[in-house]
C-alpha cells in the first residue's frame, strides 16, 4: 500500500521516457499487452510505484471512458506524485503519454498506408498470421498478472472470490453481448460490499 518516496534526477525522467518509447514499439495488440513489462520495470525493478498504485492505475483507467492506453498516463502521474509534487505528476503524464504514443503512431501511420496498398503481399500476410498466437499470449498473461496482483507471490493469489470474478467476467464478456459497463458496476459493488 505504501507509496515509495522518490528523489528524481533528470536521468530518472529520461529513463522513464526512454522506457515508454521502447515499450511503444513493442505494444503489439495494444498498450495493455505491455502491462506485464511495465509492472516488471516500474514496480519490481525500479521501485518507482507500489503494486497497489500500479493495479489502481490500471483499474481506474479501465473504469473511465476512453482508450485503455490512458492507464499509462496514470502510471506517469503516480510516479510524478511519488517524487512529491503536482507539477512533477503532470510532467509524468506528458512524458509517459508522448513516450507510449509517439513511436507507435509514426510507425503505424507509415505502415498502415503501405500495408493498405500491399495487402496481398506474402510478407504482410505472414506477419499478420505469425504474430497472432503471441498477441493472444500477451493478452492472457496481462490478465493473469492483473488478477494475481503481480505474478508469483502476488497479493491476491489466495483470494479465490476475486479470481472467480475475473474468470466469470472473462466468460460472460467472451460469450455474451452484455454492456461492459454493467460488469464494471457489478465488480465495484461486489468489492465495496467486501464480497471479493
Amino acid at each position: 500500500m505504501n507509496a515509495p518516496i522518490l528523489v528524481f534526477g533528470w536521468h530518472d525522467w529520461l529513463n522513464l521516457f526512454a522506457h515508454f518509447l521502447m515499450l511503444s514499439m513493442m505494444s503489439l495488440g495494444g498498450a495493455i499487452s505491455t502491462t506485464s513489462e511495465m509492472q516488471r520495470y516500474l514496480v519490481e525493478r525500479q521501485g518507482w510505484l507500489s503494486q497497489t498504485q500500479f493495479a489502481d492505475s490500471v483499474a481506474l483507467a479501465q473504469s473511465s471512458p476512453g482508450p485503455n492506453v490512458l492507464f499509462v498516463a496514470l502510471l506517469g502521474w503516480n510516479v510524478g506524485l511519488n517524487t512529491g509534487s503536482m507539477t512533477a505528476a503532470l510532467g509524468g503524464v506528458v512524458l509517459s503519454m508522448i513516450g507510449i504514443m509517439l513511436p507507435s503512431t509514426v510507425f503505424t501511420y507509415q505502415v498502415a498506408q503501405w500495408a493498405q496498398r500491399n495487402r496481398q503481399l506474402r510478407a504482410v500476410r505472414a506477419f499478420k498470421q505469425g504474430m497472432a498466437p503471441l498477441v493472444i499470449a500477451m493478452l492472457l498473461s496481462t490478465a493473469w498478472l492483473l488478477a494475481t496482483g503481480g505474478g508469483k507471490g502476488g497479493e491476491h493469489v489466495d483470494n479465490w472470490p476475486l479470481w472467480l470474478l475475473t474468470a466469470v467476467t472473462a466468460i460472460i464478456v467472451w460469450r455474451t453481448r452484455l454492456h461492459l459497463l454493467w460488469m464494471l458496476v457489478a465488480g465495484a459493488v461486489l468489492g465495496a460490499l467486501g464480497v471479493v
Partner: protein
Amino acid sequence: MSASPLPAPPASSTHEPDRPRPTSLTDLFVSFTLIALQGFGGVLAVIQQQVVERKRWMSNEEFIEEWSVAQIMPGPNVCNLAMMIGSRHFGLPGAMSALAGILTVPLILVLCLALVYAQFASQPQVQGALRGMAAVAAGLIAATGLRMSVALSKNVIPLALCIALAATGFVLLAWIRAPLALVIALLGGLGCVLAWRGLKR
C-alpha cells in the same frame, strides 16, 4: 451528398461515391471524442457501431480490414484505428484530429478521476470497489484474448502449433517473467517463419 470541396480519400478504389464523409477536421475530432466517451472498458465496439452503422463513413468489410492492421501494429488498437480512419478522409491532419479526439477529453477525465480517487483512497469501501473493478478489468482483457483465439483455427500455422506458441508465450511472460522484447523476438519471429512457410503451400 452534394459535391464537396474536400480532397479525394487516399483509398478511393473501394469507395462508393455517395457514402457520407466527415465534413471537417472538427467533425472528426468531435465524433471521436463522443465515441471515446461512450466506451467504458473498450472503445472498439462503439467505433464500429458509430462509424459503420450510424455515420456510414465506411462499410463493415472496410472496417474489418482496417481493424486487422490496427490490431497487429504497435500502439493502442483503437488509437491506431482512429488515426487510420482519419487519414482515409483528410490525410495526416485527419489522422491527428481523430487521434486528438479520442485521447484529449478522456485523458482530462481520467486525471480528474485519479484526483477524486486520491481523496477517498483510504476508505475500505473505495478500495474494495476498485479491487472488484480491477478483477473485472482483468476479465475483460482475458475475454479479448479468448475472442481473438477463435481466429487461430483459420491461421495458416496448424492449430496445435498455434496453441503451443501461445501457451509458451503465456508461461514465459506470466510465470517466468521474461522480458517482452526477448519473447517477441523468439516467438514472434518463429511465428512469422512458420506462417511464411505455411503460405507457400
